[in-house]
């Protein structure tokens, strides 16, 4: 008996409600594409995306499919395949709310939640239009007498609580611990999320905690509410250390996504692939 909760992709999707704030991992930390298909199939209208710190095809597809009402991110891009067309069009037309941010702010807001404090200070950023357009951010005069400079303007960022985080990883052990290796931003994301579901390439008949070094590479099952075994679960994105991205497919997507109609065409194929 596996001592963790096994979920199907559908069961994971059933944990998500319209309006939820979803944690979205970067392309290097395990994009849950198989899950994203199920999510699009369910037909959400008002998902809010919190990217740590950016998204590629996952975010563009969700936006193109009309599932997203708001996105907080440092960037949406298809990398070497250019701009994210559905994202760009949705922003240009005002179809989604964009909360432009910057990588360190997206990390810091989750660190605030990780520590259960209402805000986190950050240096830099002040004076940019990124800062000026964020009404939820605040600048105060440094209140700390024992550190920093008097009257220095300090940017405060609010704690952000993710409702549900889903990411894809190489493997889990039999106790539900997830191997994340150097992708420690996934730990911060998990700490700041109410529910965490992970799709994995495989479940290993081992216990990562039996060895100090392998323990160091994992996210403890303590933070994981359910696991689904999905082969090639990141396709066509890469799963670092396991498989590269399918550049042919992403290129195909990047071309199809240029117009709404060819995007829709592509998605018909993709959702049934």
């Amino acid at each position, binding site marked *: 008996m596996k001592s963790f909760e096994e979920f199907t992709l559908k069961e994971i999707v059933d944990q998500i409600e319209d309006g939820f704030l979803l944690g979205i991992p970067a392309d290097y930390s395990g994009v849950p594409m198989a899950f994203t298909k199920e999510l699009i199939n369910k037909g959400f209208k008002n998902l809010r995306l919190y990217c740590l*710190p950016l998204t590629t095809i996952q975010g563009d597809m969700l936006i193109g499919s009309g599932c997203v009402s708001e996105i907080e991110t440092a*960037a949406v891009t298809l990398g070497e395949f250019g701009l994210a067309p559905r994202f760009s069009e949705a922003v240009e037309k005002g179809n989604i709310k964009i909360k*432009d941010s*910057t990588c360190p*702010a997206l990390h810091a807001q989750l660190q605030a939640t990780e520590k259960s404090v209402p805000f986190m200070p950050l*240096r*830099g950023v002040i004076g940019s239009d990124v800062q000026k357009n964020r009404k939820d951010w605040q600048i105060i005069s440094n209140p700390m007498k024992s550190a920093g400079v008097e009257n220095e*303007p300090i940017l405060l960022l609010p704690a952000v609580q993710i409702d549900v985080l889903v990411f894809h990883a190489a493997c889990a052990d039999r106790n539900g611990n997830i191997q994340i290796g*150097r992708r420690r931003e996934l730990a911060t994301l998990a700490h700041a999320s109410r529910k965490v579901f992970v799709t994995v390439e495989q479940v290993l008949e081992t216990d990562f905690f039996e060895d100090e070094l392998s323990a160091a590479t994992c996210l403890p099952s303590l933070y994981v509410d359910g696991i689904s075994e999905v082969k090639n679960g990141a396709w066509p994105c890469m799963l670092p250390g396991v498989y590269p991205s399918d550049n042919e497919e992403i290129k195909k997507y990047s071309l199809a996504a240029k117009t709404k109609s060819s995007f829709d065409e592509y998605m018909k194929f993709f959702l049934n692939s």
Partner: protein
Amino acid sequence: MTIDIKREELLISQLADLLINDNHVAVGAASPIPGAAALLAKEEARYLDKRLRVTILHSSRYNNFTDGARELFDCAAQGRIDTFFLGGVQIDGQANINLVGTGKYPHTKKRFPGSFGSPLMYFVVPQIILFREEHSPRTLVQKVDFISAPGVSDDKIYRPGGPKYLLTNRALFKFNKKNEKFSLLKLNENETSDTITKLTGFDFDIHEDLSYMSWPDNKRLDIMRNNVAPMVSEFYPEFANKIWGV
């Protein structure tokens, strides 16, 4: 000899010249030329028995970090990164950069990916090198439509870092913090200060040492083609193949 040298090789060489005093150079996403320049500087430092650390985020081999995606920014904020590269959809005469889009925000006429880490990195890394290959009034503008990160800040703001250089296909500018203005420092072979003035949307000074970009010598070319090319092919295979056929 110069006919054999590719435009990209000249740019790599220009950037490498700016890294000789560094201990740690970091290179962000989608930056094959800065990445190659950093590795070139690292190889050349080895010949001088010096150590230059290069962190290339796009690579797993040249990524020195183990604390997740946050570490680049923490590390930079700690003052442990000497040089970083930033680009821009638009760059203006005060060195403001725009990575977000053209037209009125938020419903920009043309939306680009976003600001990435620039709003922090521009403040904390002592030497930021702006790099944008296209040199035109469209990219080098008088005033950016959106400030992803400002070129200058008032004195009360914590800002140990900021813009030092701007390199394009046509020229190298040095940024002067005092008068908040670029000055033209080097020209590519077919340019003059007049052609640059025509193709630049902002006002700039002419540096007293204005000269042409120097071509990499044989030794540097050897290192670039024999040592650096295979390294670059690990993380930018298409670029390495296009330039060096590796």
